[in-house]
């Protein structure tokens, strides 16, 4: 990372001075270190890195890259630079968090496996710990684990990952499993004891209240994984083996009969309420697909902006958007992955149509300008901040005029 003290960069509004500012891409290959071993290419779930047959150099196609970080965490030559959660930023975070939380226990959770640390804490039976939430644990290299144990005063690490077939980045979860096994063996041999790292898995899925089902068949149609069936006279039945936890059915159900584990309606409503009371005016609430952009570990939001991270834009429910406006939020922004990048097939597209329809209704009561939908991808880290800034400016004009 290069130092450019004269240039500032905004992520969610706060300027991070003196740090790297300029990469347009979130992942870069550093030719001078690369040994062309092709490990990255063999692990990349999206075939974004390939070896050029003629030059024999590794080529990164950033448009295919989903910024899972697996290549970064696996490269033996440290030849990959990544904008998010690299060793340096993770180290910095762990150093300060170690002090702040005053604990020698580290809990790393994949965003896909749990929305926050309350449930995670219960799962592992810990109450005091240093929390680290990352989009996919597959991006955490062995170095991070070892550094935490060896020099950052961490004595126990709990890792919550998704199941292998649930992992949004396809290989991240499986890779983590193997990594942890190997690291535990190593740590045991080095005298740190058995099972220094404990790995558990959790894959949040749909919960159906069959008493409320009105058998309209909406969920059957919208499920991208054909995990729902409507048979005979029974309420809709869900095959949890097939369910990928996208939440589209939950957002679409007209009878409010469905919930997504971890992101239940009441949970989100309570979150909206709490965030609303924290915000200054003009209040902007962002409903964000948690794969569309990643927060930096050391970034703060402006006092009038708050985020709700969801497992997929498809989980964004018009109910919650209207609830936000009713609670006094001035502007709502919905951020989704570009359609072709959607980790859950149709989530981004369904969200787009749903929000567009709601915008039409809001237009009828003069509030259409208060709802903004955008596609953002983490491969271009400035994307999200740019969209947010644009929306803010537009909102300010709207508020002045209205």
């Amino acid at each position, binding site marked *: 990372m290069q130092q450019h003290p004269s240039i500032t960069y905004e992520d969610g509004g706060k300027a991070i001075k003196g740090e790297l500012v300029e990469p347009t891409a979130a992942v870069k290959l550093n030719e001078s270190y690369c040994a062309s071993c092709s490990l990255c290419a063999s692990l990349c779930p999206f075939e974004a890195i390939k070896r050029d047959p003629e030059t024999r150099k590794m080529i990164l196609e950033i448009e295919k890259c989903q910024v899972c970080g697996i290549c970064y965490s696996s490269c033996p030559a440290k030849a990959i630079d990544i904008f998010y959660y690299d060793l340096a930023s993770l180290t910095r975070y762990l150093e300060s968090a170690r002090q702040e939380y005053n604990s020698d226990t580290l809990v790393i959770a994949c965003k896909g496996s749990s929305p926050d640390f309350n449930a995670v804490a219960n799962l592992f039976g810990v109450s005091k710990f240093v929390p680290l939430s990352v989009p996919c644990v597959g991006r955490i290299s062995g170095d991070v684990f070892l550094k935490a144990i060896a020099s950052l005063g961490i004595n126990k690490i709990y890792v919550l990952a998704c199941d292998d077939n649930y992992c949004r980045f396809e290989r991240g979860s499986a890779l983590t499993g193997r990594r942890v096994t190997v690291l535990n063996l190593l740590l045991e041999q080095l005298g740190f004891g058995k099972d220094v790292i404990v790995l558990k898995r959790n894959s949040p899925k749909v919960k159906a209240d069959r008493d409320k089902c009105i058998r*309209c068949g*909406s969920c059957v149609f919208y499920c991208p994984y054909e995990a729902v069936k409507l048979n005979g006279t029974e309420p809709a039945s869900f095959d949890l083996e097939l369910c990928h936890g996208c939440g589209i059915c939950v957002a679409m159900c*007209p009878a*409010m009969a469905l919930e997504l584990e971890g992101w239940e309606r009441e949970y989100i409503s309570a979150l909206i309420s709490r965030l609303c009371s924290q915000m200054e005016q003009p209040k902007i609430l962002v409903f964000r697909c948690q794969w569309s952009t990643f927060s930096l570990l050391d970034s703060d939001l402006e006092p009038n902006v708050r985020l709700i991270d969801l497992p997929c834009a498809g989980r964004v429910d018009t*109910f919650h958007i*209207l609830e936000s406006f*009713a609670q006094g939020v001035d502007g709502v922004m919905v951020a989704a992955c570009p359609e072709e990048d959607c980790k859950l097939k149709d989530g981004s597209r369904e969200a787009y149509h749903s929000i567009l329809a709601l915008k039409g209704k809001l237009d*009828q*009561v003069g509030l259409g300008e208060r709802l903004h939908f955008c596609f953002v991808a983490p491969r271009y880290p400035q994307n999200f901040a740019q969209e947010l800034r644009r929306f803010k400016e537009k909102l300010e004009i709207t508020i002045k005029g209205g």
Partner: protein
Amino acid sequence: MIVTELKPLNEILELVSPYFTVLIAGCDGCTQPPRSIKEAENLSRLLELGGRHRGKKFNFKVTTIPKQCDSHLVATTLGEQLQGIEAVLSLGCGAGVQTIVGMFPDLTVLPAQNTLFIGAEDREGGLMEERCVACGDCLLGLTGGICPITRCAKGLLNGPCGGCSNGKCEVDAEKDCAWYLIIKRLEKQGRLGILGEIRPPRDFQTVIRPGRIVERPSQEVK
């Protein structure tokens, strides 16, 4: 199902603005998508927001009825919920609205929807199209399952008018020529012979409007 469309919100606001405590009643029945409890909640918020703009406050309550066109279900579902309610805003079709008034004649019941047609939903295509005009003398068995009374702009019973162009109707180029579809369908099924028989003009009095069927004579309550 019965295809409906939400009225423009300004029009609904006009309808409800004389009232303060309004019960929004959804319907779990056939409209697509069902305007059930979520739709009722969303509508209450949209109207509240719209009301703010006009300096008008409301106290909305929400509920849903399994079928608004069933008098018994309406009576049992709504019966307990009408304390203090000044008006009911119905998300049902026209039949639903009228059934509610029928069961609670002193109640002001307002329609939030416009009822459009009997239709089918093409999920993949993302559209709803009229399929049946309730003529009361179904001839779908003779037209390969495609209704010319509904889908032919001229309601012809014995073949195309000659204005068909590229399979589209001369009255509305967005719409298919129903007879083109019928002929293609019967051809594929090897049943074109059916069209040999010329059908007489339609009986327009199969159902004298308003339609009525007596299921059983009403019994005197003893």
